[in-house]
């Protein structure tokens, strides 16, 4: 069975959805502004005759129609990093600021960690954690290649992450870009659809709930947690949010992304979820010609520094500003 069949009831235009999933994606690179501006990358590409197309919703992203994102000087100098367009969205939703303490719970191989460090101007502390020691070497390689000096790399199970080795006991923001069934990456790697099983979906959903709960616990009141996956499965998306809304002190907040999105779903396979999961965003391949993705933004409960607790304050903007 092709797992994409499951989602036909969720999308508005099944033919467009299926057709988009069958098309390959171009290579995309993100500008590392710690090292260079998008204008400078453009100039270097022009000079070297590297073909590129701008991504209209993000001036630091370039599509490289000829592929080979690593075969040019901007890459060697750490000015660019291969990162799919949709993969840049959770970092935008997280909106980290210079000087903050940020946790990237499932960080390897580091595309989002390095994007977070860049948004922080390399100031503050980003804790990049992964449970897989082997994948941490790729993360470290990428962080060093991009000249990041504010990252702490840890090797723990994120579900019971300890802040003991750190110089502080709570985060301002956390990103849970969870391990998932990866259906949304089928345009890059069609094998994910052949290897897909419902058992894996259920197994990984349990891990996702544990990691997201720990992220909420480890983030200060009023702080932000972003949850993202590259799957369409509600079991791994809305159901995980629903679980954490019920078990931890947090709420889903409204947020904007610069692409076309669909709201989270409240019903799936006989289950119903908290109404607020509609605040999460589904990114379907046919909407923006990207990979598939899911992204939600949570505010951790309790009084923040300004004494605000209500959802209106969180919606107002900024959340952990």
């Amino acid at each position, binding site marked *: 069975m092709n797992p994409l069949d499951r989602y036909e009831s969720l999308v508005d235009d099944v033919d467009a959805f299926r057709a988009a999933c069958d098309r390959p994606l171009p290579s995309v690179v993100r500008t590392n502004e710690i*090292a260079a501006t998008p204008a*400078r990358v453009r*100039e*270097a590409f022009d*000079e*070297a005759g590297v073909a590129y197309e701008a991504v209209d919703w993000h001036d630091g992203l370039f599509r490289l129609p000829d592929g080979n994102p*690593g*075969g*040019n*000087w*901007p*890459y*060697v*100098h*750490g000015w660019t990093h291969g990162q799919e367009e949709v993969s840049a969205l959770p970092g935008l939703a997280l909106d980290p600021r210079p000087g903050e*303490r940020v946790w990237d719970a499932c960080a390897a191989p580091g595309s989002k960690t390095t994007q977070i460090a860049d948004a922080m101007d*390399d*100031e*503050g*502390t*980003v804790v990049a954690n992964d449970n897989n020691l082997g994948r*941490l070497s790729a993360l*470290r*390689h990428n*962080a*060093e*290649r991009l*000249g*990041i*000096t*504010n*990252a*702490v*790399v*840890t*090797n723990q199970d994120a579900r019971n992450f300890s802040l003991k*080795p*750190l*110089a*502080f006991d709570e985060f301002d923001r956390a990103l849970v870009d969870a391990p998932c069934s990866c259906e949304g990456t089928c345009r890059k790697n069609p094998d994910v659809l052949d290897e897909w099983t419902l058992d894996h979906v259920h197994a990984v959903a349990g891990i996702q709930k544990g990691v997201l709960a720990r992220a909420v616990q480890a983030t200060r009141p009023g702080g932000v947690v972003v949850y993202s996956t590259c799957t369409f499965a509600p079991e791994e998306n809305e159901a995980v949010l629903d679980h954490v809304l019920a078990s931890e002190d947090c709420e889903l907040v409204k947020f904007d992304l610069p692409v076309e999105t669909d709201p989270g779903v409240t019903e799936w396979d006989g289950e119903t979820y908290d109404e607020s999961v509609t605040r999460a965003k589904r990114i379907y391949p046919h909407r923006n010609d990207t990979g598939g993705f899911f992204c939600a933004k949570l505010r951790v409960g309790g009084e923040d520094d300004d004494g605000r607790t209500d959802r209106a304050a969180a919606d107002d903007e900024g959340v952990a500003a």
Partner: protein
Amino acid sequence: MSDDTSSDDAPTNDGQRFDRLPATPDEREVEGRASRAEVLDWWHERFGIEPAIFEGYSFWEKGAGKVWIFNGEATDPSEVEAIGMTFLRTRQEHWKPTGRAVSRFGRHATKNVIELDPRQASRFAAGEDQDLPEWDGDWGYLIATHEVAGESVPIGVGLYLYDELRSVVPKGSRADLPVVE
């Protein structure tokens, strides 16, 4: 520092743990560990990089002589996989900057910088050694640069000896790049 260096209590370098560099040689407790002052002096003397550039960064040793530069908050000592980036190799006759450090901070250098032409730059990035008898500066570790989009950009660390520039770009970072005239 104690005179009794043979004691079992004398602190030694634990290669598995991050330890902050002492501020000055006088505050050194672990034998052979570089101090922050020496590290700053070295970058200043070798490459003309002002110590002020590194204000706000902390320096740590993990591994024998491997010095890391970090711009975040850390406890002391910190038992994590990595903090910041690798920066400098000490505990050897000639200290050696990492390619990453040179890539990140090399633009502040005012001496021992060797500007390569497009062909030389590509050969350097590929890890090739090349004859460069025209260099009349110091021997030893140099910062190799080339021009990209109108500005000079560090490529990595070269070792200059006997009219030859050796590329010490690590194998995993070497790249075959077209010559960009």
